[in-house]
């Protein structure tokens, strides 16, 4: 027990801070008089009070955190905050079960975007703001997680990413202290979100819709204030704006920060992931457009291009907005889009999946193994940019991919055993593990996850956390070795 006190102490501080998050929906609720403000009052009280009590009880446990504590802290934060996040949902929607509310909250904080709610257009606007504010905060948390915390913990080859700032640039180090780094990243994140809100408003959305969707886009979450998602607006301009910001959010925020600090676009030229990201997306969009035209889904080229481009970018970056029910397309197209969501997003972005940098390294590693068959004695190094990547990192990445695939297989089996059809099960698991949002089959973009049983929803909540915390973080805490002294 004494072991985890320091961790709980920090958690208590996080909780008390988190209570402030409810202020925004509270303000909006009061301003719009949408009748939900009591829910936020209660949420603030309960959350802050819990945090305060926990703080008092754990005061004596204060000490320096070790590696092991880091894992536990991350897991506790990402499972506890959703717990308190359910309060506004449960109080505003009395018919909502706890399972559904927790699923929605986890989907919010992990910026997945899968929803069990319908009638979104008629929800109190403050509640929709809260849903996507969870996305936005989760996105912030992810940025800190992946750029600062996970490299220190050495998860999934992330040590590489710590160093993976564009190199041949003078004074290119991100400020070395974690707090400084985090603040810098949040500043960029907040500023770009501000621009996104303005752009969406200028593009024709109301202020609340603009706020909700900007939160959703920058965190690559995907929840909307409309059942029909972005399709509700039927506006090419808005779709272009969203695509633009989604791509920005899919690029590493450390790159953005460097560009911001250097006041130069050179940072983008040295980011090894960007050409691949844009290239693969570009080719995929053209290919799928052609495929849909051939299959007769669309008759006009620009119509096909419009819907393909938006939905492909949305799914691939793990955002999850939709402008049409792509579950009705010939399955090759949406399955390929889901496949893209496994690796397109950049390594320091708010997106999910294995990340582009790992995909690039895996590709090069496999090629290296092929070459070794021809020249068994040659020493061939896998390189990114100009740097050779040490074997240790390759090793970790290979293991990461293995866990990724094994998790998908195992979770799909579990869902299939529980009675779900294989197609829905598999696409749902992939969508959760990549934190994308809509799956296919029973959980396509025109439907919600409410059709699933409680057991299936808990499995998928677990899957969302697995993906967001990059597997090892969560799994390590579940092993007996972790808890032995």
């Amino acid at each position, binding site marked *: 027990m004494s072991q985890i006190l320091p961790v709980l102490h920090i958690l208590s501080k996080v909780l008390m801070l988190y209570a402030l998050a409810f202020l925004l929906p509270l303000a909006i609720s009061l301003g719009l008089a949408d009748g939900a403000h009591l829910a936020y009052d209660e949420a603030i009280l309960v959350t802050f009070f819990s945090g305060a009590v926990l703080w008092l009880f754990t005061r004596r446990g204060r000490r320096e955190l070790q*590696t*092991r504590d880091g*894992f536990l802290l991350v897991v506790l934060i990402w499972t506890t905050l959703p717990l308190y996040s359910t309060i506004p949902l449960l109080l505003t929607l009395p018919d909502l079960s706890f399972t559904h509310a927790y699923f929605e909250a986890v989907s919010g904080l992990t910026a997945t975007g899968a929803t069990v709610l319908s009638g979104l257009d008629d929800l109190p606007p403050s509640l929709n703001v809260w849903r996507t504010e969870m996305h936005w905060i989760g996105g912030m948390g992810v940025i800190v997680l992946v750029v600062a915390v996970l490299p220190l*913990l*050495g*998860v999934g080859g992330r040590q590489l990413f710590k160093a993976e700032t564009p190199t041949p640039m003078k004074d290119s180090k991100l400020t070395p202290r974690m707090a400084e780094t985090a603040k810098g990243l949040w500043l960029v994140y907040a500023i770009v979100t501000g621009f996104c809100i303005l752009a969406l408003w200028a593009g024709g959305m109301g202020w609340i819709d603009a706020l909700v969707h900007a939160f959703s886009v920058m965190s690559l979450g995907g929840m909307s204030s409309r059942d029909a998602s972005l399709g509700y607006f039927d506006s090419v301009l808005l779709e272009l704006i969203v695509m633009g910001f989604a791509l920005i959010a899919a690029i590493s925020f450390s790159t953005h920060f460097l560009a911001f600090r250097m006041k130069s676009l050179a940072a983008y030229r040295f980011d090894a992931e960007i050409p691949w990201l844009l290239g693969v997306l570009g080719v995929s969009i053209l290919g799928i457009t052609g*495929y849909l035209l051939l299959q007769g889904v669309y008759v006009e080229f620009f119509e096909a291009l419009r819907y393909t481009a938006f939905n492909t970018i949305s799914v691939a970056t793990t955002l999850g907005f939709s402008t049409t029910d792509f579950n009705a397309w*010939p*399955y*090759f197209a949406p*399955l*390929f889009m889901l*496949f893209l969501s496994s690796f397109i997003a950049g390594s320091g972005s708010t997106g999910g999946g294995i990340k582009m940098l790992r995909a690039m390294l*895996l590709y090069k*590693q*496999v*090629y290296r*193994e*092929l*070459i*070794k*068959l*021809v*020249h*068994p004695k040659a020493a061939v190094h896998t390189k990114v940019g100009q740097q050779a990547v040490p*074997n240790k990192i*390759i*090793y*970790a990445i*290979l*293991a990461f*991919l*293995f*866990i990724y*695939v*094994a998790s998908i*297989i195992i979770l*799909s*089996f579990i869902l*299939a*055993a529980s009675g779900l*059809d*294989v*197609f829905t099960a598999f696409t749902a698991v992939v969508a959760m593990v990549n934190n994308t949002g809509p799956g296919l089959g029973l959980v396509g973009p025109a439907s919600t996850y409410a059709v699933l049983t409680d057991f299936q929803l808990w499995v998928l909540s677990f899957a969302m956390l697995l993906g967001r915390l990059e597997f*090892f973080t969560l*799994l*390590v805490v579940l*092993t007996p*070795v*972790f808890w032995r002294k």
Partner: protein
Amino acid sequence: MASGSSLSLLRVAPVVHVLGLVILIFSFTMLAPLLTALVAHDDAQHAFDESFAITLAAGVALWLIGRRWQRELKVRDGFLLVILVWTGLPAVATLPFIIYTPEMSFTDAYFEAISGLTTTGATVMSGLDDLPPSLNLWRHLLQWLGGMGIIVLAVAILPLLGVGGRQLLKAELPGPIKDSKLTPRIADTAKLLWAMYAGLTALCAVALKLAGMSWFDAICHAFATLSLGGFSTHDASIGHFNSPLIEAVLIVFMLLAALNFVTHFLAFRQKRLAAYRHDPEVRGVLGLVLASCLGISVYVWQAGVYPEYLTALRHVSFNLVSLATDCGFASTDYNGWPMFSTMWMLFLSCVAASSGSTGGGLKMIRSMILMRQGVRELEHQLHPAARLPVKVGGHAVPNQIVFAIQAFVMMYIATVVTMTLVLLASGLDFVSAFSAVIACINNAGPGLNEVGPGTNYAGLNDFQTWVLAFTMLLGRLELFTVFVLFTRAFWRG
């Protein structure tokens, strides 16, 4: 320095010379069905006459043409030879089919032939019960010969080429047994293992005859069992016999064929069962299969597919073992079973078969190493400084090998994903596409839905058929053997 094209000729010609020899020898195997056709007075005589003549001529021609460049084959030639053999032999093996049934397309005939030689067992043919016996014998003979080729491939050739971590498997003989080295030369090793293979085939045929099959059926099915191929002389496969005894015999021999033939040889030579105890894969294969049979039969029975548990156990055991060992016989149309059970059976087909067996998939030893590697990584997170080797059967596995195995598995997954997407794009539904790819890359045989055990692969269009034929080849040659041919490094000096 010779120009690029003549350099390639110098590379390819010696290989073609050896290929000619192989085709020449292969042509003589056509004499067996020819004999059968004569004895049984079936009307396929002319097909085998002509096929034999053409194949013999082709073999001799290639052998003569390549004679000028005859030399010792190097490791790199091995890749090319293996591929040419496994694509060339099916090409000539199509001849009896095409000559006997002129309406059969080359695509379909090639698919059938390569399904035979890779011991996959997916078929595009129906009306098997009415086929001339010689033609049926030819199909099953292809599988039996394919099995022989696989044994050599697995135990001798692929380790030399260093594909997919196979260097480990070359050395992975069952533990501390005196005088346990197999003779190092490929030919000698091959001969000994072929002897085991032939002996077990004969035993299987006798057992099947005693269990109630006719001699012809017994021999054909023994060919298909030991090679873990899965062709049958009946459309309904083993369901035709509706005999628990036959199913039991087949389960035993399928499991035997799914174990390492080196282990069989060692046990035979020492006249003791110790070899099996020392082979780490044996425990893995038998344990996994047994546990799955019990678990899945309960699941299927619970789902109400069979009223009695014993009936469920009978049908699940047979079809699960058949799929897990990548054989591919079916005793019932399990396509109607709950998806979880059929998916689990397909999953087993990826991991269960031993290295050094005639099965397919990743092979049990790679699966075991991967699992231990996964656990090691988890522990590594907590103790980054600890040096934890991956151990199998008491020996530590070198990191290089683990690397190679991981890369192999990544390639395997990427191939499955790509092929599934390609088939989807061509219009096939998700379950059919995915299951067909898995069934072909593991050389198992039946998939689900459109290509399930109650039907065959005839419903696919030509494009899909070629994609799956290629997939069968990829699986059998363990991916890298084929992919290496696509690198520039292979063709340069």
